[in-house]
């Protein structure tokens, strides 16, 4: 396995108390595999990714338990300086909003070249040549002329391509893409996702795709992990989860996708609100919103049970859910 996150726990100290953002997340990614992490805002998907990258703001954040094993070593036991060297060359991250993720006062060429000067100690001219090469690779037209331009002179899709180029620059083994297409319009979304998937195949990288867009996931992901209240509630190969979800929350998510044959009808929505991370409900965190909830859900935390090969669900009634 390329990356294994085991029982990761992260909390944030706030003025009103301690918010438990991640409560025992376990997932793994193999080389060349795409894992989609799905969940609403506040479900802990981004925080888990930041903990893996080591860019969590600490304080207020704090990792209270678990392991993050990357290429055989536990990242949480490394010194900050050793972790820094892994960032960029071993694993890299693509952010949601490329405009705000690129420095407005530096030309894109300077920012791309920085990857090589920081990690490889290349000269300025070599780094610039590499930057042009990278821009070509992510199919930015007229790369040679545009290498000296500034981020605001590029369109949204082009900027996201530059972010991808930066992340890919040192051919890391793992890429974490945090909602990489959310800020783009639909046609550009597809192009950017295709590019990402293609580069991933070419370099045989592991990809963690964080998203709340089920449509994006279906095309590119191999496996899906659904998160709720800082926990993984269901993990499954992508086609199986669409066929028959084994957790009522996943079912709710799938039912809230707009469908053509339901035109004119009211769109389904999971009732209630995401839980307050300061006061996570007892037992199964989803029970106040769950249509299948029974007494046991209020008291007992459901374990992540094996449903079938490579498939797990954290629901007391996964069998009932699976059978509809």
């Amino acid at each position: 396995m390329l990356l294994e996150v085991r029982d990761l726990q992260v909390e944030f100290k706030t003025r009103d108390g301690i918010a438990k953002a991640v409560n025992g997340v376990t997932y793994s990614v193999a080389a060349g595999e795409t894992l989609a992490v799905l969940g609403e805002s506040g479900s802990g998907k981004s925080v888990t990714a930041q903990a893996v990258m080591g860019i969590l703001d600490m304080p207020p954040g704090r990792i209270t338990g678990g392991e993050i094993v990357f290429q055989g070593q536990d990242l949480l036991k490394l010194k900050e300086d050793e972790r820094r060297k892994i960032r960029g060359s071993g694993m890299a991250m693509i952010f949601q909003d490329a405009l705000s993720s690129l420095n407005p006062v530096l030309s894109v060429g300077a920012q791309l070249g920085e990857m090589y000067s920081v990690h490889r100690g290349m000269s300025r001219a070599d780094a610039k040549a590499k930057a042009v090469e990278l821009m070509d690779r992510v199919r930015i037209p007229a790369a040679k002329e545009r290498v000296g331009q500034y981020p605001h002179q590029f369109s949204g899709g082009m900027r996201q391509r530059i972010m991808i180029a930066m992340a890919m620059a040192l051919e890391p083994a793992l890429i974490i893409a945090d909602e990489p297409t959310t800020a783009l319009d639909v046609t550009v979304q597809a192009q950017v996702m295709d590019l990402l998937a293609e580069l991933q195949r070419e370099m045989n990288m592991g990809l963690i795709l964080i998203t709340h867009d089920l449509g994006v996931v279906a095309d590119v992901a191999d496996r899906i992990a659904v998160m709720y209240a800082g926990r993984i509630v269901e993990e499954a190969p992508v086609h199986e989860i669409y066929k028959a979800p084994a957790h009522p929350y996943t079912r709710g998510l799938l039912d809230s996708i707009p469908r053509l044959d339901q035109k004119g009808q009211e769109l389904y929505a999971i009732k209630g609100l995401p839980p307050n991370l300061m006061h996570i409900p007892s037992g199964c965190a989803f029970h106040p919103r769950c249509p299948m909830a029974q007494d046991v859900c209020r008291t007992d935390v459901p374990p992540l049970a094996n449903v079938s090969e490579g498939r797990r669900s954290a629901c007391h009634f996964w069998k009932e859910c699976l059978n509809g």
Partner: protein
Amino acid sequence: MPEPDFDEGAAISATGAGGVGQGAIAPTGTGAAMDLAISEGATLERTPGGPEGTGPAGKPRSLWGDAWRDLRRNPVFIVSGLIILFLVVISLWPSLIASGNPLKCDLSKAQLGSRPGHPFGYDGQGCDVYTRTVYGARTSVTVGVCTTLGVALFGSVLGGLAGFFGGGWDALLSRITDIFFGIPVVLGGLVFLSVVTSTTVWPVIGFMVLLGWPQIARIARGSVITAKQNDYVQAARALGATNSRMLLRHIAPNAVAPVIVVATIALGTYISLEATLSYLGVGLKPPSVSWGIDISAASQYIRNAPHMLLWPAGALAVTVLAFIMLGDAVRDALDPKLR
């Protein structure tokens, strides 16, 4: 989360013509907001075809390039720039326009008005007012520029580091700036400088740097905190940048604009502060030539010989105004949102 106990983020407007001292200037806007505004402004105003309108052949423009273009078109900048250029030239080579010696005086001509060859007349000691006014520019410009450089250097380094690392040092620095803000400038000057015997400009500059740096430190701290929260800093971190690289390459260039603006406007107030201290007799002392000293000496004779007061006072007013106008123009160029 930054504590909202400081005003650096909130107060956006920098007041133009201020009184004496630090209190006259409100800190100016936040780094990130500015940058965004500048990039948006650039996209909207100058590339009618949208962000792609420049095409591959378009000349790359940087933030500073844009600001410079704005400045060159601004008449306020041109006027104040010419005045300042003139002041700098005559403070470097005063003999270019004044051939006399400011310290050569003839008591028999005391308080006389305008004469051929002596357009501004004579002062109470019989010295040529024109020559003294010209030579006084050197003192004012030296004090203004050196104080501003010192203040900007100390203030932005200390404030920037505090903002970047946060925690205990930040809290300590913030309290220290609070203490310095509590010291009344003129009173502090009377106390500190009255024990100084040196007649050079350096004790005055040192004192003004001592009291001036917290103002810049606050602004630098605030704008570093704002710049630090930008996604591109996080992104740089995620791609393996070191602390120093993040600070110098990603944060500093995006946080420096407010510091430049406030420092430029403050330069004018430092000049008038030097004049104030000299007027009170604790700043520069004769035989230094300073507008403040001349104004002080002339003030007793204002009814008999007003020209002795009006020329140095007028020069002082024009100089201070020019620097404040320059500061305003720079602020407009770096923060188009305020227009």
